């Protein structure tokens, strides 16, 4: 059996009396897209925050590429190959798209403590940054200040930034949010082949996109994984229908 790239073991987190995350086990295998779905308030955000490193779990562990990263910082996890996008775009707003990608590349190269040569004049990094922007179709918008990009363009830039890290694992938090049907279709097409580069843990509300993309689906309700398996099984599961699909 192949070794999972990402493995969550009994992850638990409570806020007061509320168990936002209750003994979650989950694996992400090489080359797959594993979708995580669940109604609002199911604890998806809490789970993601623990995987990325913003929240320390009360119990359980996060393993990334076989290493226990539970006590590592966000930056350290990113350096070990965890790339992510955010539900609400999180970018360096005053920089250009290119500046944002350069920064991500610099992070990947562990090169933040260089004080002398201008980053923008680093031709090797610049070429790589342009190539990444081309890949997501933003090359023409490279020098535009990020705060003036459209919503869709920002979503794409988020993914470009995650890719810049050359991640082994991609954590995508509702990448389709606010995209509209055409944007969703394009992004779905873009993500499909990406799983061969990095396994993807996909949190998404758009069920069409989830069913189109996912190899496996886990359903999170009240902090617990109530079902997990191939797409067809989940689609047929009565429990899932009741807990989740039923109310949409």
């Amino acid at each position: 059996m192949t070794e999972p790239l990402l493995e969550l073991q009994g992850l638990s987190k409570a806020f007061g009396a509320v168990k936002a995350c209750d003994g979650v086990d989950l694996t992400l295998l090489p080359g797959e897209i594993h979708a995580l779905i669940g109604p609002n308030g199911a604890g998806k955000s809490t789970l993601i925050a623990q995987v990325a490193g913003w929240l320390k779990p009360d119990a359980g562990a996060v393993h990334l590429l076989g290493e226990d990263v539970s006590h590592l910082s966000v930056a350290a996890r990113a350096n070990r190959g965890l790339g992510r996008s955010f539900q609400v775009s999180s970018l360096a707003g005053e920089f250009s798209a290119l500046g944002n990608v350069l920064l991500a590349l610099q992070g990947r190269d562990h090169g933040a403590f260089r004080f002398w040569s201008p980053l923008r004049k680093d031709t090797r990094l610049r070429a790589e940054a342009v190539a990444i922007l081309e890949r997501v179709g933003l090359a023409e918008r490279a020098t535009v200040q990020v705060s003036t990009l459209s919503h869709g363009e920002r979503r794409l830039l988020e993914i470009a930034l995650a890719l810049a890290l050359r991640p082994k694992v991609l954590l995508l938090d509702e990448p389709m949010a606010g995209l509209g049907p055409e944007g969703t279709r394009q992004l779905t097409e873009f993500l499909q082949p990406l799983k061969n580069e990095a396994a993807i843990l996909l949190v998404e509300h758009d069920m069409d996109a989830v069913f189109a993309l996912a190899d496996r689906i886990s359903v999170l309700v009240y902090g617990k994984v109530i079902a997990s398996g191939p797409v067809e099984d989940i689609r047929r599961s009565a429990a899932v229908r009741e807990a989740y699909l039923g109310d949409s």
Partner: protein
Amino acid sequence: MIERSRETLVNAVLAGLLLAAPLVATLLDEPFYVSLASRVAILALAGVGLNLALGYGGMVSFGHAAFFGLGGYVAGIAAFHAFEGSAFLSWPVTIGGSDQLLVVWLVAALVTALAALAIGAISLRTSGVYFIMITLAFAQMIYYLAISIPAYGGEDGLAIYLRNQLPLADSSDPLVFFFLCYGLLLLALFLSARIVAAPFGMALQCARMNEVRLATSGIAPYPIKLTAFVISAVITGIAGALFADLNGFVGPSMLSWHRSGEIMIFVILGGVGRLFGPLAGAALFILLESFIGGFTDRWQLLLGAVLLGVVLFARGGVMGLLAGRARHD
């Protein structure tokens, strides 16, 4: 690119004016204006230091007077012991005073770096308003320490009878001293420009705009911010050492929270996060102080009104008015 070249032009004009003023004053035999120009250069230097933390890094330090004053006290204490021929420390090793500027600057840089490392390490655990307040409180702590140590003048401060010296040039000559201050200011501006454009500076600016993004890119924000805070403090500390030597005096007022506010004012009046902003701000501040202060005691009232006006209505400061909005590409 037009905007950028306009800013370069404004910068050059500002630097040129500051250089020309004392030269003209020397020709007209007005030494007061030479020392006024030195004052502008020194306070601008202090502002350049703060600008790195505040303007580029978004760390609103309300305690930079601590570093300014520490630099000043290094100059004062070194000169005091050199003058007296006594030792600063006699055990376990003997450390005497020094009247050499280069030694003073080196020690001032070391002392402020260590202080900033300690203050920054604790303060940067907090953010927002807590950061503002905790930096203020640390500066107050050093202020009260200075007051309560009678050996170095306590509340009365410490006079520097002979200005600290340089190997080849005569630092007691006002124009020579101005050139020193001016040279250090240009050096600090040049270093700031390099740092800001370098990978470190990009990471620092990202820490201001969006720390989440920085961490997600695999760069831990805390070490970046702490390093920038220390560099910022060292620049302000060197300015403090120069200020003490310019005035021939160091006292607790250099450490007071009003001083912290003033250094912030230079940065804001000039334009936050603009390379030459602190120079524009310090120059305007000193001009207001010496010319309006010359014919009315109420100049602080006017300063307050100007400052209020800038904050409420002209947010880019002087550089914003002269050179347009700040641009990042």
